[in-house]
């Protein structure tokens, strides 16, 4: 097993004890990248070659030299007896939505293709301060608008390490694929409607959307500000907990980052689920979507293997001592996607205003100094399909009288979704849940090209994840098994505000209970050749 396949927890401990050098771990990670990633995403990518189709393409920008300096600094600190941090020498990747000083920060968009961030995001600063070694910036959907990575302006887009003809999920697809294929141990993603959890599920890794405000958003290029949550992706629950411990906490530069002490998420992670009340909801075992022809809502059961995985997991946890509470009603979940459609687009269209070619980023050549033309051409040439769709819809739905019809109603739906969770988790209520157990995504990873361009249909893959964003509650996706086709399926654990520690405990218990399961031994296909 390569060093890069070890857990972040083990690597950091070995480096802290001087048993391992950070530069050796870095070398192993760079070797893995060279073996599996292929060429990085680029604007001028030319035709897709045969070889491209055998690679992951997680990266947009590899920062190998910078990483080596950081790794050497970690080793120097260790040899001089200093504390090198909780993530000493752990190689990580960053979704290209986070600003990192002196490094291109593109949001996978042409309009920011030449933007070099002059400052570093708080979450990244904290990871680097804790000794993490940033390997580079990884691919994503353009401005995080999508669930497949296919909307990135930087191509080839990321492929799923388990099946290279499938998407890695999105928008943090590069992050999930990198972690799954050993290109670093950890990755930082963002989750607005499921953008950490869905790709984590598709790539068979762990992903957490923390409580809104648990991790500072400072330095994260905004998608939908009231829903955006930075969060960790890792290969196991303990690594995710370790990473959250480092990233979480108040920030003087983000007033929406909550001023609550950060618990030690590793302490008590192995206390098990005895007595924990874990809920199941029928509303999370079906999806609803509008009929493309009639617009009527169609309710459909999830595929049997997804349902069965979830029920089996409940049995496993029950066997570990959890109390399973069935039939928890979450009736307003069906409004999750429509409300998200409106809120995320209204906020996104406003957040995109600043990309006008005036101050930074791509600027079109406008003739005659015509300001309106400069704006029009810059945005027409700089934005891809997804940002354009979102600008149009967002501006439409927040304009004048339509705001009442769409935006205000969506906000009402959001409150109703929040109320569902409050009832389910109410310690004096009828259900008194500690955790709601659901599948993460309605299906395993879909084929590239299946939905691309149909942003409405594509986002129904976020149906089971989006409600946690509306409600602001934390949700953890962990691997739950493999489908008949050998594709990862994800389990989701949702908890009340700031109950991340509970989610980690339940996730860890499931991980331990299934440690010897056959499906745990199966590895992504791209790793077959390197081992």
């Amino acid at each position, binding site marked *: 097993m390569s060093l890069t396949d070890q857990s972040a927890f083990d690597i950091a401990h070995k480096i802290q004890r001087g048993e391992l050098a950070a530069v050796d771990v870095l070398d192993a990670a760079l070797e893995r990248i060279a073996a599996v990633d292929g060429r990085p995403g680029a604007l001028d990518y030319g035709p897709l070659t045969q070889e491209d189709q055998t690679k992951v393409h997680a990266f947009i920008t590899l920062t190998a030299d910078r990483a080596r300096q950081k790794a050497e600094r970690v080793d120097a600190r260790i040899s001089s007896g200093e504390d090198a941090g909780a993530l000493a020498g752990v190689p990580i990747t960053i979704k290209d939505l986070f600003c990192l000083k002196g490094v291109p*920060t593109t949001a996978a968009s042409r309009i920011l293709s030449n933007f070099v961030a002059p400052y570093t995001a708080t979450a990244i600063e904290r990871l680097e301060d804790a000794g993490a070694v940033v390997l580079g910036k990884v691919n994503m959907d353009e401005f995080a608008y999508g669930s497949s990575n296919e909307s990135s302006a930087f191509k080839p887009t990321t492929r799923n390490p388990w099946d290279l003809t499938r998407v890695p999920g999105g928008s943090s697809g590069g992050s999930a694929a990198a972690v799954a294929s050993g290109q670093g141990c950890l990755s930082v993603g963002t989750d607005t409607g499921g953008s950490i959890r869905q790709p984590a599920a598709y790539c068979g890794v762990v992903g957490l959307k923390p409580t809104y405000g648990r991790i500072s958003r400072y330095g994260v290029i*905004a998608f939908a500000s009231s829903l955006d949550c930075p969060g960790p992706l890792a290969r196991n629950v303990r690594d995710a907990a370790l990473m959250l411990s480092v990233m979480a906490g108040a920030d003087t530069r983000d007033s929406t980052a909550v001023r609550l002490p950060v618990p030690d998420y590793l302490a008590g992670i192995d206390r098990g689920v005895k007595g924990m009340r874990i809920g199941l909801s029928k509303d999370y075992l079906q999806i609803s979507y509008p009929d493309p022809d009639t617009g009527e809502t169609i309710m459909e059961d999830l595929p049997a293997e997804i349902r069965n995985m979830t029920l089996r997991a409940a049995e496993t946890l029950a066997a570990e001592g959890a109390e399973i509470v069935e039939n928890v009603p979450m009736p307003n979940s069906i409004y999750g996607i429509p409300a998200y459609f409106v809120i995320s687009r209204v906020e996104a269209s406003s957040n995109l205003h*600043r990309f006008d070619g005036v101050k930074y980023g791509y600027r079109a050549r406008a003739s005659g100094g015509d300001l309106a033309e400069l704006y029009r051409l810059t945005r027409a040439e700089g934005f891809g399909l997804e940002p354009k769709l979102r600008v149009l819809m967002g501006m439409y739905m927040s304009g004048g009288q339509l*705001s009442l019809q769409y935006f205000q109603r969506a906000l009402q739906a959001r409150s109703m979704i929040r109320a569902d969770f409050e009832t389910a988790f109410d310690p004096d209520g009828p259900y008194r849940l500690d955790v709601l157990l659901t599948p993460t995504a309605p299906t395993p990873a879909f084929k590239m090209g299946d939905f691309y361009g149909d942003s409405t249909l594509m986002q129904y893959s976020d149906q089971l994840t989006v409600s946690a964003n509306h409600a602001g509650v934390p949700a953890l996706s962990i691997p739950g098994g493999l489908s008949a086709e050998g594709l990862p399926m994800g389990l989701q654990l949702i908890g009340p505000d700031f109950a991340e520690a509970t989610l980690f405990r339940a996730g860890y218990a499931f991980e331990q209970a299934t440690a010897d399961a056959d499906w745990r031994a199966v590895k992504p296909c791209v790793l077959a050749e390197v081992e």
Partner: protein
Amino acid sequence: MMNPLAVPDQHRNKDGLMADFEAVIGLETHIQLNTVTKIFCSCKADSWQDPPNTNICPVCAGLPGVLPVLNEAAVYKGALLAAAMHAEIRLVSYFDRKNYFYPDLPKGYQISQFDLALGDGGYLDVTMPGGFVRRVNITKLHLEEDAGKTKYEGGQRLVDFNRCGVPLVEMVTEPDLRSADEAAQYLIRLRQLLRWLGVSEADMEKGHLRCDANVSIRTAGSTYLNTKTEIKNVNSIEAVRAAINMEIERQVSLVQAGGQVESWTLDWDETRQRLNKMRSKETEADYRYFREPDLLPLELTSEWRDAVIQNLPELPLERQLRFMTRYQLPEYDADILTADRPIADYYEAALTAYGTDPKILSNWIMNEVLRMQNELGLSADALTLTPEYLAEVIRLVDAGTINAATGKALLVKVQQSGQPPQAIVAAEGLSQVSDDSALQSVIDAVLAAHPQEVESYRGGKEGLFGWFMGQVMRQTRGQADPAKTRALLQKALQGKR
């Protein structure tokens, strides 16, 4: 080319016009709060005469990924102003995004407050030139960030972001004003109040206080509102007066000629002293307001609000009335002595030290201290001549130790040296020569030196008396008590020694 908005001369009969019509005016003001740092970042707020783009950071320059963090000092100053305007301070208010594109608006939206702003309602009572008090109601009072500045140079559009994120209060009046003079008076009183509270430097030339005027006319005495025009870029009290007068005249002539006022936005051209049409305003711009998700609701405790109200100083109009009732000052004096807080404090401190006649003190301040302030460009609290020293000088004059002219000169010396008046009097021998024998010997010497003039006076040229007075004064370097000199001189000239 003819100015399309100029009023033909034959219509310029103001009295005749205004007999039929009345003007309806509302003012929209932007007030720059004098906080140390900007409203959402820690950049220096005041960039007056700083080179372009030197007081900026990722936050106020709208870089990708940045977030605003609210400056509590701006909230405090905004709340203080709201309290002084008799507005309700909302315990929960919200920030909203006002979305529009402009190069000097780096985020493409302005963080402002929309429906639930810091201040709710309010009014300012303004004593108008005619002597009556007009209550000007406030319809909007909110916090927001300023945008940058665009200028055109050499065919290029240049943008300076220094002003981005400077805290502003936008305050809009109801259409309660009825003439250009009333509008000007409102601004004068608002400027006074802002400085009084210490929330803004309120310097219109520096853009600390900006004003747009909404103007319409209607048949005198009616209550409906006609289509209004909006005048932008009026950045002095005089410009406000001139621009509104010009626009009223234009609207009246237009209506009298059978035309209709259209909803235009007009730009005041300061150099040419005329209005230019900027654009027609058929529909309201749609700013797609929605709650700013990057800021939490602005929640204040009722204790905090009470403390703001407690900290509110006595306001100018209240203090003026108190000066009139308690000190029996004329309205004119009381108004001038409450022009700003330092002069009002100065007056009251001097009065405490002086202890007697408030009107005598008022005269000294209005004549001497204000002139000194104007010459030196200092506010009253910056004078070396403290209120206590002023009182001391007046007491010296009252006691006859020095005469009034010496007293006035002494004020200047105290201001220049910082020395106590008594010390200067002693050191320079300024004490009035009122000792009879000393004065008598000076007079004797003058008479002895000018026998011809004495002869002429005694021969009937009594006009020479003033000349003798002058001679004595010159000999005593002005320190002779004039009344005593006069008496002794008369005796001596009459030979009645």
